[in-house]
């Protein structure tokens, strides 16, 4: 298993290239740099998997089992659903976060492992989860470390961690809901996320935040595109709550990516027993790197990893010339135009595939979620998110129009 994971990680990381780094040119957030990852080669076919957020709006049902560490999932669609590691499930019950990434095959029901992230709220048996969000990396890395060491997470330690985190970030919540931290820092998150836009065809990103590196990588750019805002938020919140002067340089990121396959040697299979399908999830922790990988059909569908780079980061002004150089190296090349040409038709086919799922979802699923019926045709026509003409002007308006 370990050797297989190492080989798959090697193959997966050989297939990507680190793109021009994104950072806040105004210097307001010097402790965060996003290094986008692009596929060396993009195949002609889009994936046949959709993300949980997309699935929830098309009839996928997630229900509370009444147990703190389990939720029940039912996928009535003709597509596999990718439920992501630390994806937060929100509904009229205790908020949970998924422990690991897994694939829910078409037409299957399963019970998947979760952690409670809202300690002072009761579970509601059979209550539905209707939305998905994401945990901050602070909790994600802690959970992954626990899983890699013990093969399971200790719920009381998760609650302790959340309590400390909420207290440190001055995010009061009567139910100790981890998501309160996003409410407290909503303004900063909203105004800063535009500085790190997603590039068409991008399939992953390494976020260097202070002395930490956070990696997210998907087998298909479409999957990243559907989850990018969540994943960026997971790292951005860390930069917002603990601003620092230090940040990881491109060399540190290259070393991190180079060391990842070797870290995969100390892996542990953590796949839910009730899930029958081709996906297999594993967690690993070695050489200061902790991560989780979901594999299917001899490829890594989703990889997330974290490394602490104590002593190897540098102040932002020292890293800035390297970042500018890295950006300059990418200017004028034909890579992006070729990638966009290849990605455009794929993306359109993927949108059509999702639109087809709207129509193929069983009527009872549409009625139960109460969302498919009115939005069925609109969803395929969903417009790309609006982009400001002048990001600084947009930030200025966000600042003056927001009433606290």
């Amino acid at each position, binding site marked *: 298993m370990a050797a297989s994971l190492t080989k798959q990680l090697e193959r997966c990381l050989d297939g990507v290239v680190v793109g021009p780094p994104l950072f806040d040119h105004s210097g307001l957030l010097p402790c965060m740099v996003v290094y986008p990852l692009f596929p060396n080669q993009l195949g002609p076919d889009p994936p046949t998997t959709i993300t949980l957020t997309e699935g929830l709006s098309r009839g996928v049902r997630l229900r509370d089992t009444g147990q703190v560490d389990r939720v029940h999932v039912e996928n009535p669609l003709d597509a596999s659903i990718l439920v992501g590691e630390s994806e937060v499930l929100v509904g009229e019950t205790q908020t949970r976060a998924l422990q690991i990434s897994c694939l829910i095959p078409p037409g299957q029901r399963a019970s998947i492992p979760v952690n409670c992230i809202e300690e002072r709220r009761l579970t509601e048996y059979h209550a539905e989860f209707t939305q998905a969000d994401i945990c901050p990396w602070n909790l994600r890395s802690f959970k992954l470390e626990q899983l890699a060491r013990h093969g399971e997470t200790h719920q009381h330690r998760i609650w302790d961690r959340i309590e400390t985190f909420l207290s440190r970030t001055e995010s009061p919540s009567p139910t100790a809901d981890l998501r309160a931290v996003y409410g407290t820092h909503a303004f900063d998150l909203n105004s800063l996320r535009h500085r790190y836009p997603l590039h068409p065809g991008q399939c992953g990103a390494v976020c260097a935040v202070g002395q930490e590196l956070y990696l997210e990588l998907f087998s298909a750019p479409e999957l990243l595109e559907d989850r990018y805002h969540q994943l960026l938020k997971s790292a951005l919140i860390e930069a917002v709550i603990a601003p620092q002067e230090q940040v990881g340089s491109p060399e540190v990121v290259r070393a991190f990516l180079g060391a990842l396959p070797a870290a995969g040697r100390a892996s542990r299979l953590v796949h839910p027993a009730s899930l029958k399908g081709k996906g297999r999830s594993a967690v690993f922790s070695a050489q200061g790197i902790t991560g989780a990988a979901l594999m299917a059909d001899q490829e890594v569908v989703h990889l997330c990893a974290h490394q602490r780079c104590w002593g190897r980061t540098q102040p932002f002004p020292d890293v800035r010339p390297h970042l500018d150089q890295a950006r300059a190296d990418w200017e004028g090349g034909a890579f992006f135009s070729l990638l966009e040409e290849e990605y455009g038709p794929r993306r359109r086919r993927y949108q059509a595939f999702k639109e087809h799922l709207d129509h193929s979802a069983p009527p009872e699923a549409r009625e139960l979620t109460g969302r498919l019926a009115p939005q069925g045709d609109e969803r395929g026509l969903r417009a790309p998110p*609006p982009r*400001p*003409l*002048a990001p600084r002007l947009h930030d*200025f308006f966000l600042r*003056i*129009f927001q*009433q*606290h």
Partner: protein
Amino acid sequence: MDQFSSFSLRFRLILPFLALWFAAGVGLAWWNPQPRLMLTVALATSLGFLLLGPYAAAALYILRLQDIWRGHLRWPLCLVPPLSTVLALDYLLGWPAQQAALAGATALLGTVMGHDATLAVLELKTTPGTRLDRWMVLLFPLFIALAVLGGYCSLGLGSGSYRFLKALLG
């Protein structure tokens, strides 16, 4: 309490911005003191901000034009509503060339601001835990118009006072 929690504190943030518009009013009065030009600037900016900017944002978003040509198409498309409006008004009202050019430039500026302000408003309305200050949204274009007017009148007042004092003191 956050430093931008009250209207007056957030108002301080826009003072440098208003100072620019005030200076534009002074410059306009210096260049050509016809009141119709000043009114054109004030109205074109306000209407661009309140009507054409939101219209441009809605058109770009609904017609899915935002990502075409790597997103650069947004700029030329934002030129269309203000310039076509000014051309139509110019045709109907027969403005002098100077006034039409000024109206076009300021309506364009107002549209760009209105577009980004619309996105900010939508973002604040859809983000849980944030509250939109509707008063600031409505008053902001009015402040701009008043700043231009203030700049325009200040030069006249200053010049008149100077002449009056000069005549008084011999």
